[in-house]
């Protein structure tokens, strides 16, 4: 290896060094985002195994298609790929769900009661009880229950820290849509988490 490097000419050595730098840069980028990507996928699927598969697919597609781009372009592109994988997963699940619902139709099953789903106004709210650890579970549930676009807007814009333009690029929608989804997500989360108290 060292001998190979010694035999290289100046430009070859520079090119090899750049390639190594690129390799390290993209690995650093993936290492930085992979945990948050997993959590985002987990909110969407509610299953860790499925979420791991989605993140792995997203990493493969991102490196293959966009690995040669400049590092500044990577964040919105990576999240865009993951967002696309999550959408595909939901689409497949909807189709499968329709078939299963048709096969396992049970008219005696009780319908979901929307009154039961409302937050109890007398309840102090989980974020008021951070110490007991229920807040994390409540947050997971609240995020998982958000509509997909609202959740993505909240996580990408506020947690991941993308600006509105990059978030819109990652979500493949207009900047106005990002603002709308984010605003609705905040209203929903505030209501679910009792943060207004």
């Amino acid at each position, binding site marked *: 290896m060292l001998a190979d490097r010694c035999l290289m000419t100046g430009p070859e050595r520079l090119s090899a060094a750049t390639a190594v730098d690129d390799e390290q840069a993209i690995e650093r980028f993936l290492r930085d985002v992979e945990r948050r990507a997993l959590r985002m996928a987990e909110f969407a699927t509610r299953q860790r195994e499925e979420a791991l598969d989605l993140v792995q697919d997203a990493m493969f597609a991102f490196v293959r298609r966009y690995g*040669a781009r400049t590092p500044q372009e990577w964040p919105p592109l990576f999240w865009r790929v993951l967002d696309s994988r999550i959408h595909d997963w939901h689409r497949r699940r909807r189709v499968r769900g329709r078939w299963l619902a048709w096969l396992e139709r049970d008219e005696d099953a009780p319908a979901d009661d929307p009154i039961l789903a409302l937050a109890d106004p007398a309840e102090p709210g989980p974020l008021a009880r951070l110490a007991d650890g229920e807040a994390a579970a409540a*947050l997971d549930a609240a995020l998982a229950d958000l509509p997909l676009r609202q959740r993505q807007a909240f996580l990408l814009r506020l947690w991941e*820290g993308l600006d509105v333009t990059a978030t819109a690029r990652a979500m493949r929608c207009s900047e106005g849509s990002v603002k709308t989804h984010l605003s609705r997500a905040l209203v929903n989360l505030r209501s679910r988490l009792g943060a207004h108290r």
Partner: protein
Amino acid sequence: MKNGPEEPWIGRTLALLDRSADDLDAATLSRLRRARHAALEQPRVAWRPGWLLGGGFAGAALALALAFGSAGRQALQAPPRLAPAPAAEAFVDDGPEFYEDLDFYAWLDAAQPSPHD
């Protein structure tokens, strides 16, 4: 968490999210690491800027247009197919009798003196 939230509850929410990402178990982290390494080992699509790609397509289209234009011009300028020579044409409609009588015509030609003679 990268942004400074305006409302305290958002800050607490993002802190919880950070903690949930930091507290992943070892098996999950190992799978993420393996996935990352596998993704990095695959070949990548070479990226070209959009304008270069557009220029490439335009160049290819231009080259094709020139090639077809040149071929069209050559087709237009191609010499017409040669018509059969009159002598050959004369033989085309002659039946086998003509060839049988060739000796006779040769004799007649030799026997009759030319008017110029």
